[in-house]
């Protein structure tokens, strides 16, 4: 289904799945394929900035798949509806690692009910903190806290791991969901349009 460039508000849901081989050499062709799909359904210039954000999110999801998933394949699903673009990365590889954070005992999935509502600091540096908020036994939401950037010097503490931070910053909602019955890991980003 092709849509007129300004008909997003009334459109029905469009969904497509893309298979990624978890090979870094396949990243760029797949990235271009997914971006082309988005541009076909959101052709208006008004969505160009949102599609640029989706592109960076996809780069990070694919990079994350290569580096951390420990799975043979990953499914990237893209869903466009009248309100948002939803991008989900699914695999049956390694669960999101939630161990060894300051003042926290080792955590494993599914999480204990007593931890629901707690906030775990994932990364910390001089300009931002990244938190995982425990929403349920199987779901965490990522949130950023930012600080003003003053002068950067050789003694500044700057982190060198930006993947999760980029996905949290480029989306309106970013969460991880673990399904203990299927062993499926899902990272989902929602970009409001």
């Amino acid at each position, binding site marked *: 289904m092709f849509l007129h460039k300004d008909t997003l508000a009334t459109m029905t849901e469009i969904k497509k799945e893309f298979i990624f081989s978890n090979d870094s050499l396949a*990243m760029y062709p797949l990235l271009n394929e997914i971006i082309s799909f988005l541009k076909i359904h959101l052709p208006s210039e008004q969505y160009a900035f949102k599609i*640029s*954000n989706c592109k960076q999110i996809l780069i990070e999801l694919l990079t994350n798949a290569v580096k951390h998933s420990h799975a043979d394949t990953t499914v990237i699903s893209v869903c466009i509806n009248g309100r948002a673009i939803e991008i989900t990365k699914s695999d049956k590889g390694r669960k999101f690692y939630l161990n060894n954070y300051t003042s926290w005992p080792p955590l494993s999935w599914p999480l204990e009910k007593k931890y629901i509502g707690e906030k775990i600091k994932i990364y910390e540096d001089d300009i931002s903190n990244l938190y995982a908020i425990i929403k349920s036994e199987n779901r965490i939401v990522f949130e950023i806290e930012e600080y003003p*950037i003053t002068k950067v010097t*050789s003694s500044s503490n700057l*982190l060198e791991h930006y993947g999760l931070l980029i996905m949290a910053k480029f989306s309106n909602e970013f969460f991880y969901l673990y399904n203990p019955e299927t062993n499926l890991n899902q990272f989902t980003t929602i970009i409001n349009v």
Partner: protein
Amino acid sequence: MIETHAKNGYLLVKIKAKEANLDVADLFKTKMYELIDQGNATLMVSFSEVAYVDSSFLGALVSILKYAMSKQGDVSVVDLNKDINNLFSLIRMNKVFKVYNTEPDVFA
């Protein structure tokens, strides 16, 4: 994977890769550390041939900046495409690195 050009007060380092990602991040970091160790602590990295940057490469770039600063140097960036510029702005790397649209005559 890099090409260097001596400029007035700085070394221009052009990335010779379309995909600045996890495949090239470590090599880029090693090459840049070597340049800094050779006395080139003031560096400008050109992204003119780069289509996209991932977090692995960005992490390497921040590591290089910290190393250059420890040697009283600095690292700036130039020729970012629209998407990379958007990345630097949104995660405020444009406040961490000096960002130039075109190569300046003198590093200021």
